[in-house]
């Protein structure tokens, strides 16, 4: 009995000393990030949600990383990562990547050119169904290995963003571990959960439904991260997530709800950082009747869509939910992207004009106030993800405004999981969805200019406009930035005019952190990009966390 007490005391002493040492240099500590849902897939070719991407990008290094200016044209500003340096061929159709010889996978095996080629094969393989497949497949012809540290990317064509597209989507994978895994069951294999990466943090534990725990890779080629551990804690209820944050159990909350900003301001030990918004939330109309080729009885008509857009006072609605901090949507782009043009204007809010347009199109008001034409009512449903409080709050406002012009909206709230199959089967009238774009404006190609691939969440309304698609292609294929900008602007004008969706708002990208967390300047599209440089202020290591165990 006495021995155990003595034993415990001595352990406590060791921890106390170690903690003091940690406090003095600002080294160590465990960062806890609160996330709202399980990151289902983290392996680089597979992720398709923001937090899964965050964890993936911290565990797997890219060949090169975008610079803080977020320039996606050429290779200006890109920082070397796994690729120590690179060379362009004279015709810009090949780029030779020279890998850093110090780079190692977390199991100690060196990172080789073979891993780059393997990643290419996996990412474009249809059996893997990677969201990056089509972008990468459009850019690259192949990837070859010149020697163990040199890989060559062979391009199909020259474009302004060719470097960005490859570096962003071709993320090296450990061939020695994954080559044996059958491609079609990659997502469900053990290898997809026992992750071995090349980044500054490695996965220590993945407790389904609870947390993903990362530990610093002390032998990392770019230097050891300042933090000891990072825990991504899954907290399902938003109110609980926020309460834990205010109470100090969480250090970081991503995508902080704008409605809670006043509450956060009351805490002196918390701060808010506004990052650039690269997402936009929109109501997408199904232009066809279900999955058939018949036009949708309501949304098939461009005039009706424009009228419905005119009936919504987006500024007022956004102010109701967010106060003044959020920008109203214009089109399928955001203010932060370089393709944004101040001359672009959305369809104006004008209830009278909306009514007149509907009248002129033959939609007459019935006895119950709902318009009808040829026996078909101006009635439809809109699916809202149950996880988005903001959209759920906006829904009744939209409903009330459409009621004023004689349109009847039924709001259906669904869990995000359940919306996927509905989108694939085009079994919806309208969906209040959201899209996270990247700093590159080329995303609009997959999102709006092409027919949706089976199972894709893009262009589920099946918008088709050849002129628009042509302008987008020209923008992507342009070799100079001003030319690209012109093409993108013209494309935007076309799609805004066609109103295949109502572009509601750009969700604010607010990152909430405790003031004891010290960060380098945060990258506007990915605050986690420099996680290895994050640390706790000296003397402020969290109270309940002991210093890290020896890794």
């Amino acid at each position, binding site marked *: 009995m006495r021995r155990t007490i003595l034993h415990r005391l001595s352990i406590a002493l060791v921890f106390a000393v170690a903690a003091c040492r940690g406090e003095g240099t600002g080294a160590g500590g465990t960062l806890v990030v609160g996330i709202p849902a399980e990151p*289902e897939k983290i392996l680089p070719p597979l992720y398709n949600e923001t937090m899964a991407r965050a964890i993936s990008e911290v565990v797997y290094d890219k060949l090169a990383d975008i610079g803080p200016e977020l320039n996606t044209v050429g290779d200006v500003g890109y920082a070397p990562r796994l690729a120590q340096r690179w060379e362009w061929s004279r015709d810009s159709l090949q780029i030779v990547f020279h890998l850093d010889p110090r780079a190692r996978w977390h199991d100690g095996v060196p990172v080789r050119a073979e891993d780059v080629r393997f990643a290419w094969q996996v990412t474009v393989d249809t059996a893997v169904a990677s969201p990056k497949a089509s972008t990468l497949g459009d850019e690259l012809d192949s990837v070859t290995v010149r020697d163990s540290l040199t890989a060559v990317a062979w391009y199909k064509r020259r474009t302004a963003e060719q470097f960005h597209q490859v570096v962003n989507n071709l993320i090296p994978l450990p061939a020695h571990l994954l080559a044996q895994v059958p491609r079609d069951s990659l997502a469900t294999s053990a290898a997809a959960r026992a992750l071995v990466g090349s980044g500054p943090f490695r996965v220590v534990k993945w407790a389904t*439904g*609870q947390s993903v725990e990362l530990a610093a890779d002390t032998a990392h080629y770019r230097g050891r991260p300042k933090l000891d551990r990072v825990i991504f804690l899954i907290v399902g209820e938003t109110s609980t997530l926020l*309460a834990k944050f205010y109470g100090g*159990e969480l250090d970081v909350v991503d995508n902080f709800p704008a409605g809670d900003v006043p509450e956060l301001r009351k805490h002196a030990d918390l701060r808010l950082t506004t990052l650039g918004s690269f997402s936009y939330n929109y109501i997408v109309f199904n232009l066809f009747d279900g999955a058939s080729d018949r036009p949708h009885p309501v949304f098939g008509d461009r005039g009706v869509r424009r009228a419905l857009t005119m009936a919504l006072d987006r500024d007022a609605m956004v102010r109701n939910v967010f106060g003044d901090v959020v920008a109203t949507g214009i089109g399928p782009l955001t203010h932060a992207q370089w393709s944004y043009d101040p001359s672009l204007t959305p369809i104006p809010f004008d209830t009278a004009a909306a009514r007149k347009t509907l009248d002129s199109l033959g939609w007459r008001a019935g006895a119950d106030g709902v318009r009808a034409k040829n026996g078909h009512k101006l009635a439809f449903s809109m699916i809202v993800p149950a996880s988005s409080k903001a959209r759920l709050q906006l829904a009744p406002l939209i409903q009330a405004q459409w009621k004023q012009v004689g349109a009847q909206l039924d709001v259906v709230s669904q869990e995000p999981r359940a919306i996927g199959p509905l989108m694939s089967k085009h079994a919806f009238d309208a969906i209040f969805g959201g899209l996270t774009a990247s700093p590159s404006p080329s995303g609009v190609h997959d999102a709006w200019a092409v027919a949706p691939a089976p199972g894709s969440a893009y262009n589920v309304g099946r918008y088709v406009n050849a002129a628009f698609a042509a302008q987008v292609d020209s923008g992507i294929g342009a070799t100079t930035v001003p030319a690209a900008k012109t093409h993108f602007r013209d494309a935007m004008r076309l799609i805004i005019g066609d109103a295949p969706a109502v572009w509601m708002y750009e969700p604010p990208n607010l990152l909430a952190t405790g003031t004891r967390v010290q960060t380098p300047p945060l990258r506007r599209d990915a605050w986690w990009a420099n996680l290895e440089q994050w640390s706790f202020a000296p003397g402020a290591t969290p109270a309940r966390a002991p210093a890290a165990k020896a890794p």
Partner: protein
Amino acid sequence: MRFALRRAGQAAIVIVAVATLAFVLIHLAPGDPFPTALDDPSLTDAVRARLRAQFGFDRPLFEQYLRFLWNYLRGDFGWSVARNMPVATAIADALPRTVLLMATGLVAGTAGGVALGTWQAARRGSGAERLVGLGAVVVYAVPEFLLAMGMIALFALRLRWFPMSGIVDARSHDALGAAGRAADVLRHLALPAATLALVVAASVSRYHRAAMLAVLPEDYIRTARAKGLSERDVVLRHALPNAMGAVLALGGLLIPALFGGAAVIEKFFDWPGMGRLMFNAALGRDYHLVVAGVVLSGALVAAGTAIADVVAAAFDPAQELDA
């Protein structure tokens, strides 16, 4: 003993009936969600094919039913699309945590409810008793999620006595020794178990009070009083054991409600047990997981009520148990 065997046999029949009901329900639902869950785009072809073969989705309904029962008997509950793992694994993970929560809540709640009910019966008619009785009804009336929110607001946020949610402290748990880890879990167990106990106690106290009041006028109680025993002895030694039978029979009604109540409480306290698992599965259309959960809970309830009945019979074999 023969009664116990008969009851066990009946429980087995009930379990099969539960599975059948679950199967019927899930196939009645519009669009037949069970095989439709295969349409989830995130499923790989391999998993899809395996599920299709095992559950026989293209076969006639009766054959599907038999396959379904056979798979369940073998312990294969299908694939959880949301969690990307076999359903059995997800459940095996979560079940012990729910059992911990429910056992604690049930025991504490029943004990508290019986104590309260006994006290109420002993002090019947007094002002304090009426007040407490009103309090019990109010707790019974408040929806569970409000109770949970109230408990969190008071004990976790205002007083900071207990953590707000979860089962362990993510930051420090792994660094603690075995005793520390156990203490960590217990600290996190306190509030959800207390909330569950409150709910249980409110119901139990009402029923037990009624049972005690029914027992107190009986002849043998009057005899005991006439013999000169103290009121306390009369209540505790004579009335209470006879009234307990009613509470134990109540267990049969209570356990299914407990499963549901535990589900709401688990969701609000982020307790990673079966309840939260089922909630998210139902809301997220993860049908294989939901069906497995429904069948499993039903089976546990059937087993639980059978045990409760047998225990009640042991307490008072003379009681006519018209199960």
